């Protein structure tokens, strides 16, 4: 089985002038055998995608091959003519891209885009192409494949699109499949299906798979061999068991340590029995369209939501994509208006307030946003971004700016950071800035909507630790929205599980994890990747703060 299919030798890719480093990747050496799954892991920006792109000859403008070879079945992919390479692409090497939402042409039907693979290589007749396409869609288990052929990409969900991408990559049964984070955008249940599918096909067809991911759960689940990258270099490489259980490199160890485990935080005593926030009967229906040519569409995002949150308590809200988690958070901070229900902060009904009073109380609840890139204005200096809140609430400018520096220090950034623009920070640093901004108004409750899901594991861990510390120091309450159950397990006292706008289960974290009551909760838990690999668990447990 182990016939070397792809051999990468001393590959170096140069970055354009003024980049953060000279080479995107340097000295990359590895091989990939038929029928094997190689997982490439590493922090963001370490050059995982670039390596894949080099093989596909899809490097962005300005990034060039500086040296090295990539031998595919003995021929150098990097130096053959464009025509020769094009003949390989799609036919012998397939690729699945990171972002399923945009990787399909919005104006062409799925069927046409699938058929194009055959057309590009001059294979089959029109009718046969159609049939093959249909068969492929069946193979990736798309519900109602015949309809899907006629659909446009926007008519499919993210998971369905990703499956179309996979079908496309597999259409000509390539010998090598390059999959660049094929599941990042998907929720756990869908992710599990897709991974299963890839592994299944790989086994059946004996193809080689290069799977790029930053999720160690995924690695644990599917990898034969693992390649760990950092800052453009390979720091460690070996079989999955070797790397995961016995990491040799310090960085690998750090990565693995940072994986949140299944372990549940010990229940804490909530001293204050009077809840800080209590929500009853919250409903929210989104009504879109209407008007001259749009049909009205209604989405029930929240229905009869009721829970309460004590002082200093952390509640996790979990549930699949679209279950209403964000809507709940947004209703609480007032970014959305619920249709009915009550939101009480101490004894004040927030929904009954208006104007000055409302603003006075609203600043007691602040929010940390999901995307550290999008939630900071690219043209506002960081210090100002933090100070804007207090200034808007009447604090003198100089004083607000001084406080902003202190807050930056609190979240572990130097005071000089205040003078810089957001793009001069890394993702983790930006998320800290977002936290500082939320703290600037001295809130009592912070709502964190997927605050760590965009970050890679090592940074995720840092932020979680920071939140934990702040929560204790400032006796904050926290509503933590996430779709990553393991993250939730790590820091939450209690969990709320949502499905289709309703709370299907709530209870202490321990209770929900260890004896889930609702079928849906069980389904969610079962879908967590890597859960069934016992070896990883001890490593993680040691690491609990």
């Amino acid at each position, binding site marked *: 089985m182990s016939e070397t299919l792809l051999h990468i030798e001393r590959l170096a890719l140069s970055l354009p002038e003024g980049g953060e480093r000279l080479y995107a990747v340097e000295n990359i050496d590895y091989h990939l055998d038929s029928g094997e799954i190689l997982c490439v892991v590493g922090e963001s920006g370490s050059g995982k995608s670039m390596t894949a792109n080099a093989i*596909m000859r*899809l490097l962005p403008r300005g990034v060039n091959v500086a040296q090295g070879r990539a031998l595919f079945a003995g021929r150098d992919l990097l130096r053959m003519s464009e025509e020769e390479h*094009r*003949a*390989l*692409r*799609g*036919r012998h090497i*397939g*690729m699945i*891209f990171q*972002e399923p939402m*945009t*990787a*399909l*042409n*919005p*104006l*062409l039907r799925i069927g046409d885009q699938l058929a*194009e*693979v055959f*057309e*590009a*290589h001059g294979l089959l007749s029109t009718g046969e192409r159609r049939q093959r396409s249909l068969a492929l869609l069946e193979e990736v288990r798309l519900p109602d494949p015949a309809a899907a052929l006629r659909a*446009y990409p*926007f*008519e499919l969900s993210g998971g369905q699109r990703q499956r179309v*991408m996979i079908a*496309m*990559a597999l259409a000509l049964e390539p010998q090598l499949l390059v999959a660049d984070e094929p599941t990042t955008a998907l929720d756990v249940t869908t992710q599990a299906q897709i991974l299963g599918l890839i592994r299944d096909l790989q086994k059946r067809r004996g193809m080689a798979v290069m799977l790029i991911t930053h999720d160690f759960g995924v690695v644990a689940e599917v990898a034969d061999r693992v390649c760990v990258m950092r800052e453009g270099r390979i720091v460690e490489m070996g079989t999955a068991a070797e790397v995961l259980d016995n990491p040799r490199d310090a960085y690998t160890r750090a990565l693995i340590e940072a994986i949140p485990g299944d372990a549940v935080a010990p229940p804490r005593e909530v001293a204050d029995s009077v809840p800080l926030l209590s929500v009853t009967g919250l409903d929210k229906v989104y009504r879109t*369209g209407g008007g*001259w*040519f*749009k*049909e009205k569409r209604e989405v029930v995002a929240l229905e009869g939501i009721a829970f309460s949150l004590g002082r200093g308590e952390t509640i996790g809200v979990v549930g699949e994509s679209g279950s209403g988690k964000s809507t709940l958070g947004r209703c609480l901070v007032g970014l959305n208006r619920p249709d009915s229900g009550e939101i009480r902060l101490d004894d004040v009904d927030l929904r009954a307030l208006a104007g000055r009073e409302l603003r006075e109380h609203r600043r007691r609840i602040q929010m940390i946003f999901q995307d550290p890139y999008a939630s900071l204005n690219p043209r506002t200096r960081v210090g100002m971004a933090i100070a804007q809140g207090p200034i808007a609430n009447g604090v003198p400018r100089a004083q607000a700016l001084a406080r902003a520096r202190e807050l930056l220090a609190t979240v572990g950034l130097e005071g000089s950071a205040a003078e810089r623009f957001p793009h001069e920070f890394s993702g983790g640093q930006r998320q800290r800035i977002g936290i500082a901004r939320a703290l600037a108004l001295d809130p009592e409750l912070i709502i964190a909507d997927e605050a760590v899901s965009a970050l890679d594991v090592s940074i995720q861990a840092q932020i979680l630790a920071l939140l934990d510390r702040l929560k204790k120091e400032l006796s904050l309450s926290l509503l933590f929205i996430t779709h990553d159950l393991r993250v939730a397990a790590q820091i939450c006292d209690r969990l709320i599980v949502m499905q289709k706008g309703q709370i299907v289960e709530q209870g202490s974290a321990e209770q929900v994890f260890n004896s889930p009551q609702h079928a849906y909760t069980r389904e969610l838990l079962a879908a967590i990747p890597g859960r069934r690999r016992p070896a990883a668990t001890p490593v993680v447990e040691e690491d609990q703060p």
Partner: protein
Amino acid sequence: MLYLSLIAGRLGKAVLVLLAILVFNFFLIHAAPGDPALVMAGEAGSTDAEFIADLRERFGLDQPLPVQLWHYISGVLTLDFGYSYRQQMPVLDLILDRLPATLLLTGAAFIISLSLGVLAGALAAMRAGKPSGSLIMGLALLFYATPLYWVAMMSVLLFSVWLEWLPAYGFSTVGANYTGLAHVGDVALHLILPALTLGLFFMAIYTRMTRTSMLSVAQQDFVRTARAKGVAPGVIQRRHILRNALLPIITLAGLQAGQMVGGAVLTETVFAWPGIGRLMYDALMQRDYNLLLGVFFFSALLVIVFNMITDVIYRLADPRIRGAA
């Protein structure tokens, strides 16, 4: 069905907008100094004040403005656009007489500019960074920056006076009395210069837009997908990039097709093209209120119609919007 309800809805709004435009324009042009009676008297070269007063009375210009407005609007509501003071003919007849020429001219210019512009823009995008690509963009800039009437004058000089290939002006050969195909050919020959002149500026705009749009679409993920599938570069340009790049151009084109009617004033003047652009200019200069309002009404109507057509085309071109409908 959907299109019908869409169009019906748009029509409802359009009627309101049109009425508002009429009222606005009514006051606008009455704000201009002078009135048709004075202009006509002025042209006659010898008149007395009494004669001018007579004229005003005959035209109903002696009545208070609101009354005149009322008469006008109630006329329009029954599709009576009144009489041209100067030409002593129903406004509707005058406009319908001239409208085909304008539609022909702007239509031809539109098609020329759109097709050539998109073609040139696509070429420029594919050759971006190469000398040929820069050459196309340079030419486009040249067309964009050269005053329209300068191009018009030069082309007349070159093609009509020096080379004698094309007629210098007019809609058809006067006195030739061609019929059938010969007539069509004759008109087509007359159409070439004005349509090219008018189209040139817009062509430059489309060229630029197509190039920008294609270059930005080329960055998108699905193009990368197509390349990964091994699709040939030409097919990628056509099927994936160009198609998506055309969407914003459709919107722009719709807006501009309407605008061309007004932009045709210059071209129609230089080439003595009997269209409504010139009619409008003359009506304005002669303060022929009814006629001017009529022309404004129809050009606004054209803009609205073009926008509606654009909407429908856009809907056909973009399944996402079709789906949303």
